[in-house]
């Protein structure tokens, strides 16, 4: 054991291999009888390690269960992406709602529902607002004082637009299937069946869809 590595490196190895806190007592059990460092020595080595880690990607902290090497909060912007889920997809209902808000703003939820023929779920409105694409502009001065919605700067930025003007006009949109045949626009008969109940009643959205 003459060429044993420095104590702080043994502790570094053990703490990282453990992946969680180690108490001083536990650290002592790692050493062969006769070469067990006392707690003062352990504390000294840990203090050195703490210093070594200054400004690095990890830090050494004392927690209830002992000492632990952890990733500092300043690294969260990168590290949290490690476990990021793959981006999901927005539902058709959400996209339609967004499109109507973009073209008809300021517009209330009731007006959106009237155009779409189905109710607009609260979760869709919340998602659009959380995403920062839609905001409340005020309230219409009618019974119930419904909120009026419009699009935001972030909406324009996301779609790389300088202003809403750059969106094709509704008339142009009508010819969209000629411009982009690959979009395969449907005729009403083929359109999402949710929009048509036999009696024309408004059908609620699937609460699961975002």
């Amino acid at each position, binding site marked *: 054991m003459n060429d044993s590595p420095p104590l702080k490196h043994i502790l570094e*190895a053990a703490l*990282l*291999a453990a*992946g*969680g*806190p180690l108490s001083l007592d536990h650290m002592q059990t790692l050493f062969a009888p006769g070469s067990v460092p006392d707690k003062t020595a352990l504390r000294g080595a840990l203090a050195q390690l703490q210093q070594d880690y200054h400004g690095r990607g*990890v830090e050494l902290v004392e927690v209830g269960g002992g000492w632990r*090497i*952890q*990733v500092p909060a300043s690294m*969260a912007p990168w590290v*949290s*992406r490690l*476990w*990021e*889920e793959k*981006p999901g997809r*927005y539902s058709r209902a959400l*996209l*339609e709602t*967004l*499109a*109507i808000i*973009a*073209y*008809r*703003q*300021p517009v209330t939820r009731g007006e959106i529902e*009237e*155009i*779409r*023929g189905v109710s607009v779920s609260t979760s869709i409105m919340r998602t659009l607002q959380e*995403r920062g694409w839609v905001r409340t*502009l*005020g309230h*219409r*001065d009618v019974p119930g004082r419904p909120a*009026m919605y*419009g*699009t935001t700067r972030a909406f324009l930025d*996301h779609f790389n637009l300088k*202003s*809403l*003007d750059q*969106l*094709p*006009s*509704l008339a142009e*949109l*009508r010819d*969209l*299937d000629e411009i982009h045949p690959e*979009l395969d*626009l*449907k*005729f*009403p008969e083929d*359109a*999402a069946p949710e*929009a048509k109940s036999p009696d024309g009643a408004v059908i609620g959205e699937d609460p699961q869809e975002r």
Partner: protein
Amino acid sequence: MNEQLTAERMTPEEAVAVTSTVRVRGERLTELPRDLYIPPDALEVFLEAFEGPLDLLLYLIRRQNLDVRDIPIASITRQYMEYVELMKDLRLELAAEYLVMAAVLAEIKSRILLPRPVQAEEEDEDPRAELVRRLQEYERYKTAAENMDSLPRMGRDLFGASACSRGMEAGRREPEVSLQELLAALADVMARAEMFSHHHVQRETLSVRERMSQTLERLSADSFTQFHDLLRPEEGRRGIVVSFLALLELIKEALVELVQSEPFAPIYVRARA
């Protein structure tokens, strides 16, 4: 290191090093096969340590420091059969492969013993060739397995390093939407709206709509804003026209109200509460 040896890892040589009394079916084993120096008691462990007939054969050959390519077939066959008999006696699970190998050895032995015409000797392949090839082939993987076992590996020699990152839960990545998707959605809804509802989506000037939103946002219901504050001369004539149209549209939709105390006095605008 030695105490960690398990039966499966024990090589025949190591097994030989152990000693005590051997018993087969409760009876003392009195007659051991020739060349078979077996540590009593360890016999079973020893025999089980072989990974098959090729392994056993390799052991027999290596024990005599012979080259695999120069097998003395007669003596190896005899030794092999003795082990196989012993395995039978011990009722070890004797894989059929051991018996197949016994047959192969017997066949080779008989071919070697048969006299061959001198001329034919050059063309005839050595009857041991196929067996030698198989032994070599097996041995190279046996060695490869030993090498592989000595590679540093995770959990035994190397350990994963990880640091606590609690509190850094996965952010959810927002779905991406392309402009095309958005337009396709609108085209869909328009088609439906035209067919099914009395609502008419008219051709709109989007800049007016946009300006309506912007204007509404600037206005408050609690205080008045001067009309001319809503117009931005730096936008030029078109900008002013758009702002003005937006304001008219807002008035038409009863979203804002205008107040003027007297003719030519400043016009004030406020959102309808």
